[in-house]
């Protein structure tokens, strides 16, 4: 174990000379501040890990922090586990670029906890021990159910983990210019240290620290941005509507439709739906995945085993809902505040997805890019983002490692006959294996589009884990056959649908776009307005089948558009223009244009090179066959259906005999795993 750490540290040292080479949002002269804040946070978490490690000896201490976490603490830890960088930076970014739709997107992430509260948290605490597999094995055939539960846990965790590692690496690079590999290895080593030495106790406290930092940072930022308007909602939103940058952003998003709109109408449009989320069926599909998937997320389920009683589990969800919901309401102000103070165009300029909205807002609030305080704020937010990634990854690694060690090794291979010492060693070794795997995946997947993996993780959890857990807890006839088939079919369907969905990369489309950038576009004649087209059947909304008429929104009339020049031509023109300019502001603007064009050109060239000669996606398709981005709409009902049909078709004596015990125990908490004595 130490060898691995030393090896990692050596790798870290070897490449550290590159660490300061890149550029990020933080200017070089202020980087020391970012590292100071990073250092302070790392020192604090290391101290917590040291303290936790001294109290972590037994299996129950390693996986469940000795079931000694209080309801309030666990609520903060759940929030820390759940509010990933995607929600902290991603949703604020979506709001800053697309207004209302970004806010609407955040709602589902909170509503998801109602399912957790009402049907999952307490029963799972009452009958479970450490893992999803323990819950399923209560009345189903233990080896079979533990095997599928572990496979599903590892699958879900890996998807989520990959998104976190890759997203985190890119994020840290954009923020402070640290090399991608160093970020990934750094995150990996830190997370491994917490998990391997401090187990669940250290992980819990790292998540609590991160959640407190995140909430504090957000409240401070909102105080500054909303405070300017006397905490008046209409006053603040009026400033958004009146902001020229916001109006410009809306005009850019809606294109031709903007031609007949006044600036006020454009600004108001920012507060109305439809700028980002365009397909309602896809939103319902994502909504289903969130609302049912959160309750099936292994790292969230695992958190309920850390509290002493079901009452504490209940209390922890209530606290988590207060923190998570409050945070998303703040995000509305963070996102809109960034849109008016920093400008949507500047945010999108640094990162297309808008991830830089919150950090740039922090910099602005402190006094701007050249000020000491502004950069201190930026450093703080960057450090919080870093802590966020580490905390989420630690929770995921612990969940995957517990599935590997507790379900597979102890439960299936050893038939539940492993000495306590052996169990703890297995847990630590599995953590190291999963941690190294996470670092490897993070490095291997560099540059890949991984954003959809978060949604996929939720979809798999909702289609596979949730039907199995839910029906095991509440349906007398559920049994091993149903659970195993349902979990496998649910997970495989979700993954297969994503493989043929628009989330994948389709080389022909990429090549076409790249050529547009390099060669320019021909003149386009004026077009008349087109009414909306309704798909010929519901199946045609979901699949690109032959003979289908695809649904399309109404299009306004568009005037003739001049031909667009290719990148090389555009660059030449800009350089010519630059030579004639004398005003400094204009020169800066043109220089910015040149940089952006050069960036687009080199990306297009790289794309052409990567996809040269390729015509089909990974799944061998020229274009998506499944038209939704989220598979939940199909895979979740299918998962439920399979559990029901196969449970009815086969009989399983144990599942029937254990029903009374399970049902009484999940409702009363009799014989629930108790807190370990200290």
């Amino acid at each position, binding site marked *: 174990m130490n060898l691995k750490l030393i090896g990692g540290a050596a790798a870290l040292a070897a490449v550290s000379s590159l660490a300061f080479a890149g550029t990020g949002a933080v200017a070089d002269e202020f980087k020391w501040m970012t590292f100071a804040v990073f250092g302070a946070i790392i020192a604090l978490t290391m101290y917590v890990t040291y303290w936790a490690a001294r109290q972590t000896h037994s299996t129950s201490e390693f996986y469940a922090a000795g079931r000694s976490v209080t309801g309030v603490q666990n609520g903060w830890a759940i929030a820390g586990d759940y509010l990933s960088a995607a929600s902290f930076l991603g949703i604020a970014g979506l709001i800053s670029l697309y207004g*209302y*739709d970004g*806010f*609407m997107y955040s*709602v*589902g992430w*909170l*509503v998801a*906890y*109602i*399912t957790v*509260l*009402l*049907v999952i948290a307490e029963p799972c605490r009452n009958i479970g021990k450490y893992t999803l597999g323990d819950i399923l094995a209560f009345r189903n055939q233990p080896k079979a159910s533990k095997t599928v539960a572990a496979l599903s846990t590892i699958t879900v965790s890996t998807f989520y983990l990959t998104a976190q590692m890759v997203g985190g690496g890119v994020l840290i690079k954009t923020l402070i210019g640290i090399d991608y590999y160093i970020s990934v290895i750094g995150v990996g080593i830190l997370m491994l240290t917490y998990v391997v030495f401090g187990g669940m106790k250290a992980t819990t406290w790292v998540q609590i620290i991160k959640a407190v930092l995140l909430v504090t940072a957000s409240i401070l930022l909102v105080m500054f941005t909303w405070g300017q308007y006397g905490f008046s*909602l*209409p*006053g603040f*939103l*009026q400033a*958004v*509507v009146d902001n020229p940058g916001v109006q410009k952003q809306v005009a850019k998003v809606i294109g031709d439709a903007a031609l007949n709109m006044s600036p006020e109408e454009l*600004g*108001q449009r920012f*507060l*109305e*739906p*439809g700028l980002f*989320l365009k397909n*309602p069926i896809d*939103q*319902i599909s994502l*909504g289903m995945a969130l*609302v049912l998937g959160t309750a099936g997320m292994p790292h969230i389920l695992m958190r309920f085993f850390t509290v002493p009683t079901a*009452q504490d589990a*209940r*209390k922890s*969800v*209530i606290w988590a*809902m*207060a923190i998570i*919901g409050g945070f*998303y*309401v703040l995000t509305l102000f963070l996102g809109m505040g960034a849109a008016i103070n920093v400008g949507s165009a500047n945010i999108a300029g640094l990162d297309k997805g808008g991830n830089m909205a919150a950090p740039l807002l922090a910099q602005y609030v402190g006094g701007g890019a050249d000020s000491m305080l502004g950069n201190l704020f930026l450093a703080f937010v960057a450090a919080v983002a870093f802590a966020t990634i580490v905390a989420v990854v630690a929770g995921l690694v612990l969940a995957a490692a517990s599935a590997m060690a507790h379900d597979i090794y102890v439960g299936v291979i050893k038939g539940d006959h492993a000495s306590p010492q052996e169990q703890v060693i297995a847990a630590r070794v599995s953590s190291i294996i999963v941690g190294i795997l996470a670092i490897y995946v993070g490095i291997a997947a560099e540059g890949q589009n991984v954003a959809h993996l978060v949604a996929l993780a939720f979809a798999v959890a909702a289609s596979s884990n949730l039907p199995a857990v839910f029906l095991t807890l509440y349906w007398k006839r559920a049994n091993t056959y149903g659970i195993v088939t349902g979990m496998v079919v649910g997970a495989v369907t979700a993954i297969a649908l994503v493989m043929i969905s628009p989330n994948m990369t389709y080389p022909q489309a990429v090549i076409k776009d790249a050529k547009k950038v390099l060669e320019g576009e021909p003149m386009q004649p004026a077009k008349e307005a087109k009414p909306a087209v309704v798909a010929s059947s519901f199946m045609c909304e979901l699949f690109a089948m032959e003979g289908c008429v695809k649904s399309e929104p109404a299009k306004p009339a568009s005037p003739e558009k001049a031909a667009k020049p290719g990148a090389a031509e555009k660059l030449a023109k800009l350089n010519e223009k630059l030579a004639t300019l004398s005003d400094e502001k204009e020169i800066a603007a043109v220089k910015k244009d040149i940089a952006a064009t050069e960036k687009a050109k080199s990306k297009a060239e790289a794309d052409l090179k990567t996809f040269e000669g390729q015509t089909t996606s990974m799944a061998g398709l020229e274009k998506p066959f499944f038209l939704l981005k989220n598979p939940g709409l199909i895979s979740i009902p299918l998962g439920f259906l399979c559990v029901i049909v196969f449970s009815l078709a086969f009989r399983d004596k144990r599942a029937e005999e254990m029903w*009374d*015990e399970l*049902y*009484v*125990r999940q*409702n*009363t*908490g*009799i*014989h629930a795993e108790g807190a370990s004595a200290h």
Partner: protein
Amino acid sequence: MSKPEMNWAAIDADPRFQALHKKKLTFLWSLMIFSVVYYFLLPIGAAYFQDLYKIKVWGPVNVGILFALSEFIVAWTIAAVYAKRANREFDAMAAEIIKDAHNIK
């Protein structure tokens, strides 16, 4: 393990447990269905009733924003309603059964 043997079937059949089971199930299902319906109304409304969402009611604040904010209030209210009922009623009913569990044969 030194946990005493229980007659689970008898506890399950006990009228007190049946009362808890029925009350809890109806309550949980109604909250769950209400919250799911209320949640999905938001994206469905955003897609098919855009004109309604655009109506301004309080300065630039429109129906859509108020509806989205109400989702948070509703989620918190459901959580509070559940917690109150569970803390007061369900826990007491369960405690009653636990106290007597080893005697139920």
